[in-house]
């Protein structure tokens, strides 16, 4: 499984999750977990996704999502989960 963490940070607005999910569905990326919270009016979301079935390269997915973020007015980052596991799990 190629687990990737997608984080979305920015001003809360209608349809952020919907737009990200549409992109993921279109690209055959499966969502394993979503958590979301609002801190001082700012939208914070984390998704754990599986890219195994996606035909797109990591770099392309990351660039597409960053561009989508610009359109919505939020910052979308795409990182392999290993960095978080390394730091927070022994």
């Amino acid at each position, binding site marked *: 499984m190629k687990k990737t*963490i997608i*984080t979305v940070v920015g001003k809360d607005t209608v349809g952020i999750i919907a737009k990200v999910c549409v992109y993921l569905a279109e690209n055959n990326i499966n969502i*394993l*977990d979503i*958590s*979301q*919270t609002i801190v001082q009016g700012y939208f*914070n*979301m*984390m998704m*754990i996704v599986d890219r195994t079935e996606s035909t797109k390269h*990591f*770099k392309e997915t*990351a660039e597409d999502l960053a561009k989508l973020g610009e359109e919505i007015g939020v910052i979308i*980052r*795409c*990182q*392999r*989960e*290993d*960095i*978080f*596991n*390394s*730091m*927070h799990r022994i």
Partner: protein
Amino acid sequence: MLNIYEVAETNKMIEKENLDVRTITLGISLLDCIDSDLDKLNEKIYNKIYEAAKNLVSTGEDIAREFGIPIVNKRISVTPIALIGGAACKTSSDFVTIAKTLDNVAKKVGVNFIGGYSALVSKGMTKADELLIRSIPEALANTERVCSSINLGSTKTGINMDAVRLMGDIVKETAEYTKESDSLGCAKLVVFCNAPDDNPFMAGAFHGVTEADYIINVGVSGPGVVKTALEKVKGESFEVMCETIKKTAFKVTRVGQLVAKEASRRMGVPFGIVDLSLAPTPAVGDSVADILCEMGLEYAGAPGTTAALAILNDQVKKGGVMASSYVGGLSGAFIPVSEDQGMIDAVVAGALTLEKLEAMTCVCSVGLDMIAIPGDTKATTISGIIADELAIGMINQKTTAVRIIPVIGKGVGETVEFGGLLGYAPIMPVNQFSCDAFVNRGGRIPAPIHSFKN
């Protein structure tokens, strides 16, 4: 499964607290390039480095993108050139041609520094060692990315005072050769006692003769992360403070270990070590001095500074050692003046002197680093400063180093600008009393009593 708070914590370290991997350094052995024909030697060196390192920069960029962690520098270290050039180089100018080859190949593969224009002379100098040392001013003036380091002593051998005397002259000469650029050449020249074979950090990186053909060493950083963690335990006991540093160092080092393993896998090169250093940059919030202030000092250099630095260095190691399968290099907190805004502020405020810095080097990872001094400082005085620093390393069985810049044409009160990661520095006063007769004695300092452990 990971939760949103853990993910947010990691990303906050990267975005707000300057967490990064400071360098991926590819070590390359040049021993099999040795040839008695200088042109052939240069050609072999160029080809070997090019073939080994052509994908280094792109691999580093891929890893940075996929993990979302900046990898600031991609660098190369090679076998000390005095060993490689000995058979072919009959003059110092011959050695300069090798420096130019190293510079050319560094530019070709896109690394920002290449280390290993070096000689290991802790007990004695061969003819080749001396030729290389005498070529340093010209080599550093005629290249951009080459870094030079000389090991002048060790706990096992004592200190080679003839070489220390010579390096006083060479540091001055290097300053003269590069005086148009504020004596920048000296920023790429460091002398050591107990130099490690696997240091990934410049200017002192070289690929030791104990190493394999190729190796990946990684240097992590993150003074900003440690400082932010300490902000949350203001006023707490030493126990709480130490635990906080240790836990933070663990997290920072785990990222370094991950990047090192990944780079090693993708390049098909064995993983060597992670260097657990807190390396500052001139950027705001990326300062080791600021950690010392957060620990409770008004400025770095105030009474208590050496103790605070000792704690910091020790806790960083304790936290980091468990996070990495192999730890090496310099491993500790760096205290360069020009590369650390907090250190610069402390010097300007009059809190930090050369003598206090020397005391601090007894408990930190390296030594007198990136210190600008008046351009009219005598060569023998520089040798004296070097001898003091190396004695600390020799007696305490640790690595110490001197990277000092006599800025030609400038004096105390003036400022020198090196640019980029090298930063800027106020010129610090140097003790004016003479050590000529001491330095000029010649010979070497015998190995200390505790080196005889057999």
